[in-house]
């Protein structure tokens, strides 16, 4: 059996090269794989394209990764961070690119990337500046815009519990983008609060089947971004 268990977050991400496209799960701090992100900061890969709904908070996690200058381009729906000036400053200085995508289109593009759908039509953005330059097609009397599937070289994911085969379950609204990003990346790297023996998760309750997961690493007591920010932590 192929071993998915990694010794540490460092081992889990150490082959991410410069120029990689990396999806990072989470919506705000909920479901954000902060330990994996911090390992990526230490690792130092640069010229990254990062796909996440936001641009991080404070000076930890995703905001810290952006702050080091490792990120060439952000693809996200809402880059206005609370408690974070990292992205706005780099953006205004022309030091980081931004592709702004509505949240639902972002989610659907990621799912499409994972499901082998290269492109689809959607009503979202029709008639707005975000549809400019895109193909519009009328179907059954309504206008739709063509959007393309998104995939990535790597996905950094946080879950509640994984078994040895990489079957995952999540906690409440920390689920968010994580399951679809697992599907859309060539190499999906997961930090789990708990790794259990195979067979311990009811097959009816699995949210991400192990086929979408390449590497798992246990992080029993993950940090909470808001707590780090309250404590004034700035990574690294």
């Amino acid at each position, binding site marked *: 059996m192929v071993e998915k268990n990694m010794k540490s977050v460092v081992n889990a991400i150490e082959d991410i090269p410069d120029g990689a496209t990396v999806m990072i799960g989470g919506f705000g701090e909920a479901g954000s794989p902060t330990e994996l992100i911090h390992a990526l900061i230490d690792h130092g890969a640069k010229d990254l394209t990062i796909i996440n709904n936001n641009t991080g908070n404070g000076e930890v996690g995703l905001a810290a990764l952006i702050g080091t200058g490792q990120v060439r381009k952000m693809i996200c*729906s809402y880059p206005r961070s609370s408690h974070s000036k990292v992205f*706005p400053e780099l953006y205004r200085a022309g030091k980081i690119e931004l592709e702004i995508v509505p949240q639902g289109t972002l989610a659907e593009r990621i799912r499409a990337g994972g499901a082998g759908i290269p492109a689809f039509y959607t009503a979202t953005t029709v008639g707005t500046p975000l549809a400019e330059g895109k193909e519009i097609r009328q179907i059954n009397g309504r206008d739709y815009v063509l959007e393309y599937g998104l995939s990535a070289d790597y996905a950094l994911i946080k879950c509640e519990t994984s078994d040895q085969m990489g079957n995952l379950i999540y906690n409440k609204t920390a689920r968010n983008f994580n399951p679809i990003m697992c599907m859309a990346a060539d190499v999906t790297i997961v930090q789990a609060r708990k790794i259990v023996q195979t067979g311990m998760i009811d097959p009816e309750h699995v949210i991400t089947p192990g086929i979408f997961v390449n590497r798992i690493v246990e992080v029993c007591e993950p940090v909470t971004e808001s707590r780090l920010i309250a404590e004034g932590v700035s990574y690294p």
Partner: protein
Amino acid sequence: MAELVAADIPDGSYVNLGIGIPELVAKFVPEGREFIYHTENGLLGMGPAPTPGQEDPELINAGKKAVTANPGASYFHHADSFAMIRGGHIDVCVLGAMQVSSDGDLANWSTGAPDAIPAVGGAMDLIAGVKTIFVTTQHTTKTGLAKLVRKCSYPLTGQKVVSRVYSDLAIIDITPEGFRLLKLAPGVTFQEVCEKTDAPLLPANES
């Protein structure tokens, strides 16, 4: 405003509330009615804020504030959540506005200022997918400019989507003929609303 919006939402509706005044709708649900709240980050059956100290950083709403889950709630991932929105399954969405046109166009995501960092979130998805869009807003901006206009000058969130506007001065329907007064706030005159609206306003229908 929030109370008036709540009074117009049918029992059993699936409702998505934007950030700000729209959130207050949940406090004014009429006796005997129940709404089921959807938050686009992946929860149907959202309950009120938890008692202080009980917050769970992994149980939040789209505004990233701590919430609770009511009995009968369900969690799902983002693509499934937006399938609810974009697939037309949410009955009512209540949003704030920068501008609403008499065609029902909505602008609420960007002033289009050259130094603004564009940030759209789920607004365009909600606008494109939800069956009924209610807007709550002050009738004019802080500097007194009309927010109900002939044509939005700010970048659009969506076209021909708003059904009704609840302002501090009046409730106004968007009809094929343009803005039509539904109801005035206490002490407000039709004349005053007309003056503060930058498009023709039709008087309320006799009924």
